[in-house]
């Protein structure tokens, strides 16, 4: 079982890196593709953590809807290869250094807290229990989130209206 964890996590990190740093091409589509791969590997990690429902939802919603949306927008905007612009040395290196420092801090904190020795894995996580919890304790957030989705839809439609469509409508 453990080896699966190492494989999935290695893949996740690698794909994540390739999303950000793509030596092959600077096309955003490439980044999107690698993001899909990252999502799928993460969903594998979710399965290892006994969160089956979430794994499925992750692939359905994230990989299937969100990234497709990204791709649509990329193609809609007809972005070509990003030209190599001025490589800002100072900003880039400072940013990399800051993030590296942050990473180091987080990792050492986690390692030093030694949670692993005390944690006990439980084997719950069945979808049925999740559903029960969702519709009893968390039914209010559930309803609110649906409202949120409605609002998001309305917002998107408004935002994507162009001035020509408005003039045509009048």
């Amino acid at each position: 079982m453990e080896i699966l964890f190492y494989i999935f996590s290695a893949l996740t990190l690698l794909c994540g890196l390739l999303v950000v740093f793509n030596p092959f091409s600077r096309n955003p589509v490439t980044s999107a593709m690698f993001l899909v791969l990252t999502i799928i590997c993460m969903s594998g990690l979710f399965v290892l953590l006994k969160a089956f429902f979430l794994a499925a939802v992750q692939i359905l919603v994230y990989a299937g809807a969100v990234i497709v949306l990204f791709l649509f927008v990329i193609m809609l905007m007809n972005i070509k290869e990003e030209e190599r612009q001025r490589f800002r040395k100072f900003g880039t290196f400072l940013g990399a250094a800051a993030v590296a420092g942050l990473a180091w801090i987080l990792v050492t904190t986690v390692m030093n807290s030694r949670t692993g020795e005390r944690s006990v894995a439980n084997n719950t996580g069945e979808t049925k229990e999740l559903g029960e919890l969702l519709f009893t304790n968390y039914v209010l957030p559930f309803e609110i989130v649906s409202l949120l989705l409605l609002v998001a839809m309305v917002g998107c439609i408004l935002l994507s209206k162009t001035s020509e469509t408005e003039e045509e409508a009048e």
Partner: protein
Amino acid sequence: MTHVGLEHYLVVSAALFCLGLLGVVIRRNLIVMYMSLELMLNAATLALVAFSHHQPPSPHGSPLDGQIMVFFIITVAAAEVAVGLALIVALYRKRQTTDVADLASMKL
């Protein structure tokens, strides 16, 4: 192979988060920045699920609370992506560029 405990997942989550942050700071294409943002969000969800898995049952709340949160996070993230991309499209239409360096009109 040592036993895979909570901290392994947390380390992966932290590393993924930092990769996403790196992308936000370094890449200049708006779309790719946004994708890195999603990467950071995913790292957070991974951490939550890991905690939820390793939490013992307690009278205060179900151990599945973490998964519930992730559920909502994914939903909200989807809505947010929709709106954000709509904004990016509108911005592209106005400025004909997706390079953040060209979008610095709010400076003092």
